């Protein structure tokens, strides 16, 4: 098939998405609920049912939630309390970090038995977790917690208003891997300070926050708190100054210490001109900086004031937003010929950043292109996968053919008895190259983030590994000069290690579903390294026969025996192993001869009964 790669993206639909969300009526309902709820100080959460959607609402803020002074940016490991699954980590076991204040608040709510009981009831419903400010971060954590239950019939979604950044890149990666990023929608007023404030070290904003938080609280609740205007405006300017310093470092990619937090999920920026949604984390970071830059002519302190007041002003903003979105913008001059770029320009126009702002424009363009490239790559791989099926078919045929001749494909390939084995080797190399490329692409992040949790690819990879790795093992032992074990470092091909890891990770998330126990022996041995274990046992047997290292060798053999017994019990071994000519049977004959010299072995051996009764033969 000739598709012309690379292919630039054709459209950008951030504005359509914003219109979709703004007009569906969820946002005003959610905000209404938060606003009325925040007046109430004691509750930690609230459920509200609206037709067939349940809103789970978290309160805006308490003073102490903002405080997180133990670390520079207030971050801590998400899994301190083992509430979340171990899957929320990076590739090299880097922990996922979240904001400590939000985490503590969530843990506190989780201790409430009422919460757990109510969530249990909601199993099969549409749930929207909503929260404002810190409550938004709590809502996001609750959503992750809920998603990790992996309930099949529920549909959960998270909407936050003016929530601070709450997680680091590792968390983002983990969520992306599960394809959950689309379940988070953060509504952000263009000037609102909170979404960007944790990009600055906590220390630099702590004092100002002390002054500002009571002001916000008085806005959100009926409770009257005196705030002196002088200290307020000073605090406003101060906090904005400090935050902008840090955001500009990030937005312009200057070197320096960066805050660990990154945007996770879709961000919907709102301004008086309209709204637009952005999905790319890098671009959102840039926007967080450039959107406060504002137009010329507006004094800095006025912007600073808006930054603070907009945080509690979402209700007002929502009123105007659908009107603004429906007013189609008129472009006197089209900025470019490409509809993709026009789309981006429209989005920027809608949030009042201005298309002339090249940084954001380019970041968005890059993000769109990168995403497009990922989609293209996967399409390409899909095509290749289906052509590679014929190689797999060839290998499968080889396997069946060998079985008819009463030997394993493993042995046949290792001994190269037939001319056809040349073709088998060809297919093996081709497939190896294909999967090497896939693993490589995944590691370079040029495939969609959830690639490695997609069933199709996990299954294809597992089938490949089980069928072909034995041949790789055979090839290794046939050509190996240094007498190295296949299982030792650096020998087993990287692709097999990675594919096995993907499969295991996927299986962990499937644990909710009971796996059916096997009743028949598998057609492919489930542990693709079986033959490597056998080869090691053979080496040990050899040295045993030669009388070298008797104890160590015996140990290896016994260990192998136990291992085989275990995979026989759960029937994950293929019957071809028991064919007369198989090297396993040969090993067993020699090994049992040696062992039979000791009288008690017969009764102790885990395998003896099975092999002696020829339980295997019946199956064959």
């Amino acid at each position, binding site marked *: 098939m000739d598709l012309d790669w690379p292919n630039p993206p054709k*459209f950008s639909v951030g504005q359509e998405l914003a*219109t979709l969300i703004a007009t569906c009526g*969820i946002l005003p309902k959610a905000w209404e609920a938060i606003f009325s709820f925040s007046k109430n100080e004691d509750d930690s959460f609230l459920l509200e049912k609206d037709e067939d*959607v349940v809103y789970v609402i978290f309160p805006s803020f308490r003073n102490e939630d903002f405080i997180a002074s133990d670390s520079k940016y207030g971050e801590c490991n998400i899994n301190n309390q083992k509430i979340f699954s171990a899957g929320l980590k990076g590739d090299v076991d880097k922990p996922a970090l979240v904001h400590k204040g939000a985490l503590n608040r969530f843990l506190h709510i989780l201790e409430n038995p009422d919460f757990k009981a109510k969530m249990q009831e909601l199993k099969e419903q*549409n749930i929207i977790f909503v929260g404002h400010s810190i409550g938004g971060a709590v809502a996001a954590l609750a959503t992750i917690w809920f998603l990790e239950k992996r309930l099949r019939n529920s549909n959960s979604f998270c909407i936050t208003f003016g929530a601070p950044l709450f997680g680091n890149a590792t968390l983002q990666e983990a969520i992306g891997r599960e394809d959950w990023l689309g379940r988070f929608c953060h509504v952000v007023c263009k000037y609102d300070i909170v979404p960007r404030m944790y990009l600055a070290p906590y220390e630099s904003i702590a004092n100002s926050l002390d002054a500002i938080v009571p002001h916000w609280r008085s806005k959100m609740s009926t409770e009257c708190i005196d705030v002196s205007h002088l200290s307020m405006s000073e605090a406003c300017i101060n906090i904005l100054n400090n935050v902008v310093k840090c955001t500009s470092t990030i937005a312009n990619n200057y070197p320096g210490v960066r805050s660990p937090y990154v945007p996770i999920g879709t961000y919907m920026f709102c301004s008086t001109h309209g709204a637009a949604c952005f999905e790319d984390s890098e671009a959102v970071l840039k926007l967080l900086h450039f959107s406060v830059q504002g137009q010329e002519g507006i004094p800095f302190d006025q912007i600073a004031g808006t930054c603070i007041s907009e945080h509690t002003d979402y209700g007002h903003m929502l009123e105007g937003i659908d009107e603004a979105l429906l007013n*189609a913008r008129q472009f006197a001059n089209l900025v470019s010929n490409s509809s993709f770029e026009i789309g981006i320009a429209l989005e920027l126009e809608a949030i009042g950043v201005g298309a002339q702002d090249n940084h954001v424009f380019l970041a968005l363009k890059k993000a769109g292109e990168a995403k497009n490239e990922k989609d293209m790559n996967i399409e390409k791989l899909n095509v290749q996968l289906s052509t590679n099926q014929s190689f797999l078919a060839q290998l499968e045929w080889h396997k069946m053919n060998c079985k008819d001749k009463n030997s394993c494909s493993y042995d046949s390939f290792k001994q190269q008895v037939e001319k056809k084995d040349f073709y088998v080797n060809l297919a093996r190399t081709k497939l190896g190259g294909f999967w090497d490329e896939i693993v490589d692409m995944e590691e370079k992040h040029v495939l969609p983030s959830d690639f490695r949790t997609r069933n199709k690819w996990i299954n294809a990879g597992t089938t490949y590994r089980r069928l072909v790795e034995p041949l790789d093992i055979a090839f290794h032992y046939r050509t190996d000069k240094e007498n190295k074990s296949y299982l030792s470092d650096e020998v087993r091909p990287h692709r097999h290690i990675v594919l096995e890891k993907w499969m295991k990770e996927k299986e962990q998330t499937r644990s909710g579903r009971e796996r059916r126990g096997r009743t028949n022996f598998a057609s492919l041995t489930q542990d693709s390294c079986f033959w490597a274990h056998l080869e090691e046992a053979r080496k040990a047997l050899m040295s045993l026969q030669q009388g070298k290292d008797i104890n160590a060798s015996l140990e290896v053999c016994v260990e192998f025996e136990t291992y085989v017994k275990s995979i026989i019990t759960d029937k994950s071994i293929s019957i071809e192993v028991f064919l007369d000519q198989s090297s396993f049977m040969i090993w067993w004959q020699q090994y049992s001869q040696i062992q039979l010299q000791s009288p008690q072995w017969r009764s102790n051996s885990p395998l003896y009964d099975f092999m002696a009764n020829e339980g295997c033969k019946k199956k064959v």
Partner: protein
Amino acid sequence: MEACTSNPKPGETLDYVVGSELIADVWDACCKAYKCRDFHETEIKKNVIIIAFCGSQKVTDFITENDFDECKINSYNQHFESMHDGDVENSKPALVRKLFLDRFLCMMQSSKLGDKIQQYQTGKKTEKVTEKKTVILAGHSFGGAIASLWTLWALEQRWENSPLCITFGCPLLGDKIFSRAIEREKWSPYFCHIVSRHDIVPRLCFSSLKSLPISKALDRLLPYWNDSMQKGDNQQKVQDGSHALPQEDSLSFIKQVIADTSQLVTHETRALVVGSANLVGGAVKCLIKRSPYRPFGYYVFCSSSGTACCIENTEAILQMLYFALGNSRQSGACIMEHIEYGKTIAQISKSSSLIPPCWKTVNNEIPPYWKKNENFSTDEVALALQLEAMGIGVQNVQAWLGLKIVEENKNKLTKNMDQQIIKLDEMQNYMAELELYKISCEKDGSLGYYDFFKMNWTKELPNDLPNDVKWINANKNRFKLAAFWDGICELMEKEELPNDLPNRVKWINAGTEYRLLVEPLDIAHYYRLGKHEDSGHYIAHGRPRRYKLLQKWLEDKEKKGEMQSKKRIQPAIFTQDSCFWARVEEVHSKTDEEKTCFTEQLKQKMADCELSKDVFLDDNTFMRWWKSYPNLSAQEKQSFSYKYPVMLLPSAEG
């Protein structure tokens, strides 16, 4: 390539009607229909008959159980058999507005209109009607929906001629399955919906009937519209729409409609660009109720300045419905234009600038900006023209982008189709090789290709490649073909191929040929690997989706009577039941009763010449079972085989 439309060129008839003064007559009839209870019939020149349906509605009709008043089209009737999504297992029927369906069914029972239309169309001789006539079914507003259903009913009868449907300001009638089914059957040109730019009624169906601003406004508007239409006289009824509805009510009403329309349209647009990817849109989608209704047929959008454009693509119609309305806040126009089609039509026929559906040839009036920039493709310029004609203006970038996304999507379908046609040709090679394989296997005279592929061979054939080499090649071809057809199925599911592909004779034939030749190999492979012991028998548990789909394509086409297979007089080359071998494998584990049933079926199939001769090769899986089957007397077995003349062939050759 394939002709399945019966009326020679409905599009042309349409041009003739809309482009001529006939359209004014149609509108007149629609107005007159308001004074009748059900419909009004007139005959105008040259045997053209217009049947116009009354469009008046009671407010009480709008008190409904569910938000959008939808119901399955096949509830309480079997008039619309083609209106389903064409899926293999549990295919879903289309949804239609219950109100209209009920009224149609009621008319169907109470009036003789069905018979009448049949007489006109088929020209059956009765006392009065002696020759075929051109019938136009028409209606304004709700009458338009009834007219559409009658037209659809007539189309389902598949007569040689079908009536044409023309509506004015008609509300949406059916869902996506409905409009896709109409596309699939190539019936779109029979429906022409004329919509005035600001008319609110066609957009009404995007809103929930239960939402307050809507129901409140309809309470006042429906009587107002009915009254004005019944009074009929154009000149007098023109008062300001605000008399009907207080300003603020009408504002919130229009606002609600615009919001709902934009919600639906933006969602569709997004889906076209990003697919069904599970992003925010996907998650939100499940949380809100969205109107199921979609446009179908041709839409002619008219602006008050007398320009008009005709659009046939459902998605593009949606965009136009949104942008033509969404751009303006003229609440008066939204309400008044619904009853002022007379004026609109007069304007159009004066300026006669209808932009035809294939408007790529139009070359005048490109706005200066677009002319200047030579980088725009003809497609893009055409879109610009369309927008200009509607008075939306090319400056509205969003509208332009929206239309462009739709256009791009359509191009993608065409491109995909072209690619697949080339691939299909390539696949013919593999098919030919497999056919050779079949023939060479049968040379033996004792086993067919089914048993060879199951590796039941006992000896190598002389003067031929070794059996296993042939096996490898056949298996490779099997894989390539499977990949191709699986790809087709996947593209169909993702709606990335033209909707009417399952209706094209070329593809049905290719699919059937593939199924008959290759499915036995898949069955052989399945039983050879003993998969039936793991996961159950082939037909129930192992049959790939591609075969089910391909079989369904053929069956659907045959049901419509458009592809009738003639009675066979010679045994088929391929066994016509592609699952035959699976049934043979399965029969071992069946009860005696079922076995008897199976033999009965076999006899029937043999009588119909549906079994190919390789079934009767001496040593194959079937014959071995057949010979050992105890419940038949030897004579019966003999008679079974002897009745079949070809049975003698192998031995004769041997």
